[in-house]
């Protein structure tokens, strides 16, 4: 079904989209090259942050525990 004239023009996606990884293999061990992103997180929630784990995997991780980081 052809789309209407409002759909002409330059696209915003830019490149073929890859299917997202659904399994844990997406995790890459070791220091992350996107570590800078943590700076923003630190500005939002100062101090050690079990937040993500507590919020998302609450039943698995105990908030306030030693955490997973071994820097």
């Amino acid at each position, binding site marked *: *079904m052809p*789309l*209407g004239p*409002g*759909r*002409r*023009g*330059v*696209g*915003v*996606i*830019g*490149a*073929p*989209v*890859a*299917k*997202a*990884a*659904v*399994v*844990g*293999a*997406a*995790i890459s061990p070791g220091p992350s090259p*996107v570590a*800078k*992103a943590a700076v*923003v997180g630190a*500005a*939002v929630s100062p101090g050690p942050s079990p937040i*993500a*784990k507590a919020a*998302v*995997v609450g039943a*698995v*991780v105990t908030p306030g525990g030693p955490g*997973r980081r071994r820097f």
Partner: protein
Amino acid sequence: MTERSLDDLGPVDYLIVEFPAGAQNFTGEGADELLRLHDTGIIRIMDVLILAKNDDGSVEAMELSDLPELGELTRLEAQLAQTLAEEDVENLAAAMDPGSVAGVLVYENLWAAPFASAMRRAGGQLIANGRIPIQAIIAAVEADAALEAVGV
């Protein structure tokens, strides 16, 4: 809608939800939840497309208005900005399996807009973002537990 400056805009994301052939169970629940997010101001839905990928790999794109029964989604139709262009369709459909149907959603994260604006005013610029699959977090936690169990 009230006029907003570019600096007031929240981050805009897109997502594609694929419904594989034989696993399509549309009850309207998803549409209700989407409208709830929109109506409560958590997100602003900017665009919606429905894609169907045929077995031969060809793709059909449909607007919301092409659907026979829109229900409550009718309210959204007039507010869509048609952010996606026709040339986006092929790029988006690259992630789909033949025989599947997908909903493509473009939305502004209204909830993040004030924080994003504040970061910009402070001189910050977003240099990376992403989503961590819940499965990945669970796998990492489980892997840690396994390592601890063997004393590593």
